C-alpha cells in the first residue's frame, strides 16, 4: 500500500499517525481517569459516567453562549472558564448523587451499576427536556480549531495538543493528590480498611463523597474538552461508556498507572489497526484483543498481588 509514496510523505504520515495515536491515548485517559478513581478506589461502577461528561459539555455550551452574548471580547478564553464551571457543576452533582444514592449501596457493587444506569436514563431525559433532542453546536474559539504545521506535510491539530496538555495536567494533579496530599492518604486508607480508617478519626463518609465527586468532576472536565472533538447531545454520553470501562478494567482497577498504561495500549492498538484495516474491523479486533487479554489476565495489566 505504500509503494506509490515518497519517503517524505511516508515519514510525515507516520508522524501524524503516531500523533493521532497519542491524541486517542489522551482522550482515553481523560475519559477513564474519573472512572478509575471511582471504580478503583471505591469499587463503584458508575454507569452514568458518560452523562456526567455530557453535563460538562452542556456547561461548556452554556458558557460559550453567555460569553458570546455578554463578553464577546473575552471569548478566546471562555473555554478555560467553561472547564472550571464544568468541574464545579459535575463535582456538585457527583456529591449529591453520592449522598442520595451511592452511599446506600457500598456493599452491593453490582447494584450501584443498576442504580447509576437508572440515573443515566434520568439525566438523558433531563438533557433532552432542557436542551432539546437535537445536538447542540459548541462554538469554539478560533485558536483552538486550527492546526500547527510542523513541516510542510506534518500538521498537528491544536485541539489534540490541548487535550494532551490537559490530560497531562489532570493526570499529574490526580497523582499528586492521591499520593502526596493528606486527602489522598485518607482515601487510600479508607480503601484499604474502612473500619480502621474510621476508627483513627478519618471521616470516611466525607472521603467517599469527595472521591466520588472528584471522579465526576474530572468527567465533567473531560466532557468539556470533548466538545472540541465530539458531539454534544442527550445520548452522546453512551458513545464513551464501553471504551471507558474497558480502559479501566484492562488497566487493573486499583491502579492509576494501570489505567494510563491500558489507555496507551488500547489507543495505540486501535489507531494502528484503524490505519491498516477498515474502521469497523479495527474496533472489533481491538475489543476482542482486550477481552482476550482480560480473560488471560483477569486482574488487569497492573494489579497488586495481595495477601489474603
Amino acid at each position, binding site marked *: 500500500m505504500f509503494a506509490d*509514496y515518497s519517503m517524505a*510523505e511516508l515519514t510525515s*504520515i507516520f508522524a*501524524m*499517525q503516531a*500523533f*493521532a495515536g497519542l*491524541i*486517542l491515548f489522551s*482522550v482515553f485517559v481523560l475519559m477513564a481517569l474519573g472512572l478509575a478513581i471511582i471504580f478503583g478506589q471505591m469499587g463503584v461502577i458508575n454507569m452514568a459516567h458518560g452523562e456526567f461528561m455530557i453535563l460538562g459539555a452542556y456547561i461548556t455550551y452554556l458558557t460559550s453562549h453567555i460569553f458570546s452574548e455578554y463578553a464577546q471580547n473575552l471569548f478566546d478564553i471562555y473555554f478555560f472558564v467553561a472547564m472550571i464551571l464544568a468541574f464545579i457543576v459535575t463535582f456538585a452533582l457527583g456529591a449529591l448523587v453520592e449522598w442520595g444514592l451511592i452511599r446506600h449501596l457500598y456493599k452491593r457493587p453490582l447494584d450501584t451499576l443498576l442504580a447509576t444506569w437508572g440515573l443515566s436514563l434520568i439525566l438523558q*431525559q433531563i438533557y*433532552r427536556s432542557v436542551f*432539546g*433532542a*437535537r*445536538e*447542540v*453546536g*459548541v*462554538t*469554539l474559539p*478560533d485558536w483552538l*480549531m*486550527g*492546526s500547527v*504545521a510542523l513541516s510542510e506535510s506534518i*500538521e498537528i*491539530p*491544536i*485541539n*489534540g495538543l490541548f487535550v494532551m496538555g490537559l490530560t497531562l495536567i489532570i493526570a499529574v494533579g490526580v497523582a499528586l493528590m492521591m499520593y502526596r496530599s493528606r486527602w489522598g492518604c485518607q482515601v487510600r486508607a479508607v480503601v484499604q480498611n474502612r473500619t480502621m480508617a474510621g476508627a483513627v478519626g478519618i471521616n470516611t463518609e466525607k472521603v467517599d463523597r469527595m472521591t466520588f465527586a472528584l471522579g465526576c468532576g474530572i468527567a465533567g472536565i473531560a466532557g468539556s474538552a470533548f466538545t*472540541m*472533538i*465530539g*458531539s*454534544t*447531545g*442527550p*445520548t*452522546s454520553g*453512551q*458513545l*464513551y461508556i464501553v471504551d471507558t470501562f474497558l480502559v479501566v478494567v484492562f488497566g487493573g482497577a486499583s491502579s492509576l498507572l494501570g489505567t494510563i498504561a491500558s489507555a496507551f495500549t488500547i489507543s495505540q492498538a*486501535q*489507531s494502528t489497526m*484503524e*490505519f491498516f484495516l*477498515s*474502521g*469497523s474491523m*479495527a*474496533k472489533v479486533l481491538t475489543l476482542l484483543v482486550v477481552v482476550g487479554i482480560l480473560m488471560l489476565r483477569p486482574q488487569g495489566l497492573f494489579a497488586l498481588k495481595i495477601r489474603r
Partner: protein
Amino acid sequence: MLTKFPGSKKPHSSLRRRILQGMLALPAAMLLSHSALAASTAEVNTTGLAVTDSTVKVGILHSVTGTMAISETGSVQAEKLAIDQINAMGGVLGRKIEFIQEDGASDWPTFAEKSKKLLVNDKVAAVFGCWTSASRKAVLPVFEQYNGMLYYPTFYEGLEESPNVIYTGQEATQQILAGIDWVVKEKGAKSFYLLGSDYIWPRTSNKIARKHIEKLGLKVVGEEYYPLGHTQFNSVINKIKLKKPDVIYAIVVGGSNVAFYKQLKAAGIDMTKEKPLVLTISVTEDEILGIGGENMVGAYASMKYFQSLDNDNNKKFVEAFKAKWGKDIVIGDVTQAAYLGPWLWKAAVEKAGSFDIDKIKAASPGIELTTAPEGYVKIHPNHHLWSKTRIGHAQLDGQYKVVYETKELMEPDPFPEGYQ
C-alpha cells in the same frame, strides 16, 4: 388537486400556471374530489378506519427518545405543521385531521409494535413516520399485512418499492448521481474517497457512487466504514491525507458526524479550499446545528432541499415553520420531505374521494404538488417522488447556499440497473 397553503391566496403567476397545468392534467381527479366533499362517512370509508363525519385520525410515528430523537424531531414538527395547516384550510374531505403520536424510541421492534398499534387498534387512515431504513424495514411487513399507508420522509438507499409506502425523500440514485456528475463536471474531480457509517444506507449509497464513478472512468482511492457512534477519525483523516483524493465523499451520520467534521477541520483540512473537496449526502442543516457552521463551512451537500431555497413556497413554509416552532429552528431536507407527507396524502384522498387505503394506493401515482417548498413534485408509479437534486455549499451561518440544481426532475429509480 388544488393544494394550497394558508396565505397563498394570490399565487405567483408562474405558480398559477403550474397549478393550471396540474388541473388540466387531472380533470377527473378534480371532479372526484368535488363530489367526494359531500360524501357520507360510510361512502368514503368502507374499511372501518378511524374516520367520523368530522374527523379523521392519522398516526405520527417517530423516535422522540433515544439516539434517533436527534434526527427525527424535525420530521415530527414538520408533520404537525402540515396537519395544522390542512386543518386550517378545512381538513381532508371536510374532516379535521387528528393525530396520534407514538414514540418509536430509536428501537426497531418498538416501531413495529407501535405501527401495529396504530393500524390495528387506532385504525388510523395514514401514518407519517419512520426515519432510519431499519425502522422502515421493521414496520413494512406490518403495513403490508394490515394494509396501512406509510409516508416515509428520509432519503434512503432504495432497493424497495412497496404499494403501502409513499417515499417522500429521495432514493439513492436521485441523490447521488447528480452530485457526482456535478463535482466531476464543475470541479474536475478525478479521485474519490468514500467514507461512511457502517450500515446499509451508506454502504449501498457508496456502492452506487462507486459504480457511477468507475463508469465515468474515474478512481475510488479508498472506501471505509466506521461503527455508528464512532468518535475518533484521526486515523482515517491521515489515510485521506496520504491518498490525496480530489473528493471526500462522506456519508457519516449521527454523533459521528460531529466528531468527523470537527476533527477534519482540526487536522488542517480547510474545506473552503476544496483540496480535497468534501461532498456529503448525509449532513442537512439539522446536523450542522450540532457540528457548528464554522466546522462545516465549505463542504458541499447533494440533496433535494435546502432551507435557503429561493422560491415563494419555501419562503412561506420557512416562515410558518419558524412561527410554530421558534425562530432559531433550522429545516433540513428530511424535515421538508416529512412536511410533504400529509399534503400528498390529502391530495390522494381527495383524488380518490375516499379514505380507503386501496383507493389511495391506486390514486397516488401521478399526484402532483405544486406548492411543495422544494418546488414541484410528482408521485411516480413506483411510489417515489420525482424531484430535482440540488447542490448546496455550506456557509458559516450553518445554511447551505444552492449552487446548482438539476434542470429536469430526476426520475426515482429504486432498483437501478447494474448498480445492485
